[in-house]
């Protein structure tokens, strides 16, 4: 939470007065400028670190990095499984958990980055020495292929479907798929890169990096008391996103419930599903588009972010006032039988693309309770989105996100790998 909330009269009073998700008054968290711990009673509240450099608790019923307040930077990596030995992979997950437990606390991996045997490479690569924990969260997921490769196809949850081909998809297989994913979010990019690099190293021989993505500038927020961030098209995005404090909506749309599982997928209780999409933006044509058309495409104005015909960003949108192909109209839960995603996407730019065009866009990350009821219907509904002229989905992956690591004896995926079939 490094962004200083707006201090204008309007925004403060708006935050003070407008309720969220029917859960009562939002805390007036804006006042201090730094992050503030949220303590609303009756909610399953994620602890917010005392400052941007602090540590987020690694342990909990759900993995950190989902409803946790969105950090500024991302390093996301998808891995291919290199082993078919279940025990060997489970051991790697234990090693990863031990390393993640240390790194999220701001500590070096293993014996550290120096002071060990001079002839041997250190356990930790060292580039995060002296840096704060920076709210690092590490979130792990299992892709569809993992279950087949480890001979445990029966334990693949039904909700972990292979995504269908969507209209306009132009997927690069080298930026898609993966048997395992790691989402590293942090306020310091070096901390996030360090974490993925060390996990990749521990994983050599068991997993290999298939693709990875760096992100900056979160494009949606799970903390509504903060200013809604803007995407690279210059528009506020994620106004109606699920807040980390809204346990009712989290339970309804994000966390896998016991009722969703059977004997084979019981290990997913408390978990979630992640859809990752690399969405390339045609930046230059967009920048030549008239303001009117840009606002029509989104269905919001560019300055305030207010829906068509309304004054303020958070005014309830009147969807019928928007053009039929407006992005907000098509993506809104009301147009999708209530389907709601928890988004924590990031902007990315990987330099230029060789034709002098900005290689940039949105790395879309959305968590949901069931991919079939979440991302798929929404994305299908976006087939006629006017925005499609300016964006293209070029990478895609889906993962089952197991529940959290409960304590120091627990490890990522224990329920899956210990469960009796």
């Amino acid at each position: 939470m490094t962004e200083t909330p707006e201090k204008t009269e309007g925004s403060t009073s708006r935050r003070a007065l407008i309720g969220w998700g029917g859960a009562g008054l939002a805390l007036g968290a804006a006042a201090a400028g730094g992050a503030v711990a949220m303590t609303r009673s009756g909610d399953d509240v994620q602890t917010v670190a005392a400052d941007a450099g602090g540590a987020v608790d690694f342990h909990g019923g759900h993995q950190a990095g989902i409803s946790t307040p969105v950090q500024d930077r991302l390093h996301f990596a998808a891995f291919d499984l290199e082993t078919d030995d279940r025990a060997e992979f489970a051991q790697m997950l234990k090693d990863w958990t031990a390393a993640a437990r240390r790194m999220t606390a701001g500590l070096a991996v293993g014996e550290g980055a120096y002071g060990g045997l001079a002839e041997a490479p250190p356990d930790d690569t060292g580039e995060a020495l002296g840096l704060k924990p920076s709210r690092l969260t590490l979130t792990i997921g299992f892709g569809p292929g993992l279950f087949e490769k480890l001979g445990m196809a029966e334990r693949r949850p039904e909700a972990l479907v292979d995504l269908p081909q969507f209209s306009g998809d132009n997927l690069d297989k080298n930026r898609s798929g993966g048997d395992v994913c790691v989402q590293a979010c942090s306020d310091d990019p070096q901390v996030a890169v360090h974490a993925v690099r060390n996990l990749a190293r521990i994983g050599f021989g068991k997993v290999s990096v298939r693709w990875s993505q760096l992100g900056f500038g979160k494009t949606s927020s799970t903390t509504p008391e903060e200013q809604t961030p803007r995407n690279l098209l210059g528009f506020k995005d994620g106004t109606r996103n699920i807040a980390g404090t809204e346990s009712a909506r989290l339970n309804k749309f994000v966390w896998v419930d016991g009722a969703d599982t059977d004997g084979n997928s019981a290990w997913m209780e408390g978990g979630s599903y992640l859809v990752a999409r690399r969405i390339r933006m045609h930046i230059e044509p967009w920048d030549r588009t008239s303001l009117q058309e840009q606002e029509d495409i989104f269905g919001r104005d560019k300055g305030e972010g207010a829906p068509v015909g309304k004054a303020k960003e958070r005014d309830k949108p009147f969807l019928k006032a928007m053009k039929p192909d407006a992005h907000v109209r098509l993506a809104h839960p009301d147009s999708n039988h209530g389907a709601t995603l928890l988004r924590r996407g990031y902007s990315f730019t990987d330099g230029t693309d060789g034709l002098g065009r900005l290689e940039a866009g949105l790395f879309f990350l959305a968590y949901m309770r069931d991919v079939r009821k979440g991302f798929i219907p929404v994305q299908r509904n976006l087939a006629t989105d006017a925005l499609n002229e300016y964006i293209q989905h070029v990478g895609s992956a889906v993962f089952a996100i197991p529940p959290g690591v409960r304590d120091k004896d627990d490890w990522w995926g224990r329920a899956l790998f210990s469960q009796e079939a």
Partner: protein
Amino acid sequence: MRAVRLSVVTAAATAAALAAVTGCTEKGSSGSGDRVISVTATDDKCEVSKKEFPAGHVELDIENKGSKVTEVYVLFPDDRIVTERENIGPGTKQKVTAEVKAGDYTITCKPGMKGDGIRQTVKATGGKAPKRDPRLDAAVAAYRKYVQEQADATLPLARTFAEAVKAGDLEAAKKAYAPSRIGWERTEPVAESFGNIDPKVDVRADGLEAGQKFTGWHRLEKSLWADKKITAEDKTLADELITNLTGWQKRVGTAEITPTSMANGAKELLDEVATGKVTGEEERYSHTDLVDFKGNVEGAQDAYELLKPVANENDAALVTELDKQFAALNTLLDKYRADKNSYDFTSYDKVGDADRKQLSDAVNALAEPLSKLAAAVVK
């Protein structure tokens, strides 16, 4: 490749640090001062506080009192490097340690980091050689023999190649090219420890320093595959290649080899694969990268097998993992040759991106645990 050459040298330097960890040297002696040599470097002098000292753990306390950045080397009589420290700024102090046996050495300061430097001859006397596991001494001896055998076996193959070039026989030369390099590739870190041979025989076009002439295997590779003709100069270069390789063959037996330099040399062979072969840079004209690849892996495995009994005692899990990963990489490489006894590998330009990634992943899977071998050997 300079990076590799330096790291082998560093192995000798860090032997001292290791000795402290493993208790191989008498702990009291290094602190007693008789093995501490003060080196005072100026723009025109390189003064040493003593010219005779007991063999063993030696520490150089270097102070640069000159106006230029300098570097200090400890050299064997044949100019091989025992240890070195570069970039010592004016007015700064640096410490360098080394493990030296009895014998003559040269300490050299290079003000401005150029030229032959200002030299002082020094002598390490008597002293107690660091105590080592006799099995490790046997491993070093066996590896030394292996290195010599590789050089001995390379010469006739290199001569076949050179003769074909000199006869102007393009096809015969192409055929003899890759086999002539296998022995070199198997023992590259040792070959490269003789700093002046590698730049003459194995340099690539992009590795040339300003003013350096492009000679050796890869220059001839370019003529054969890219230029598709053999010039009079190429024939001269073929003779020079044999001369340089003969020098290597004569000197390779004197290389400084320790158990840890063997272990880290094995890892460096995999690094060679990771940086040069997997990318197709090494053999960019002939695309015989997989032959070098196999040679590097074989060399690493030979060094590993010699150290294995000791490593297995200290870290059995590591040995299990290394056996598994060596086997996996070798199995993968076998996919690229029809006959497991031949070095007739698929041309690397015919190996697609997905297969190259698979090779790269297998190299990482082996090289990461291999980097822990040195620790397992001296635990």
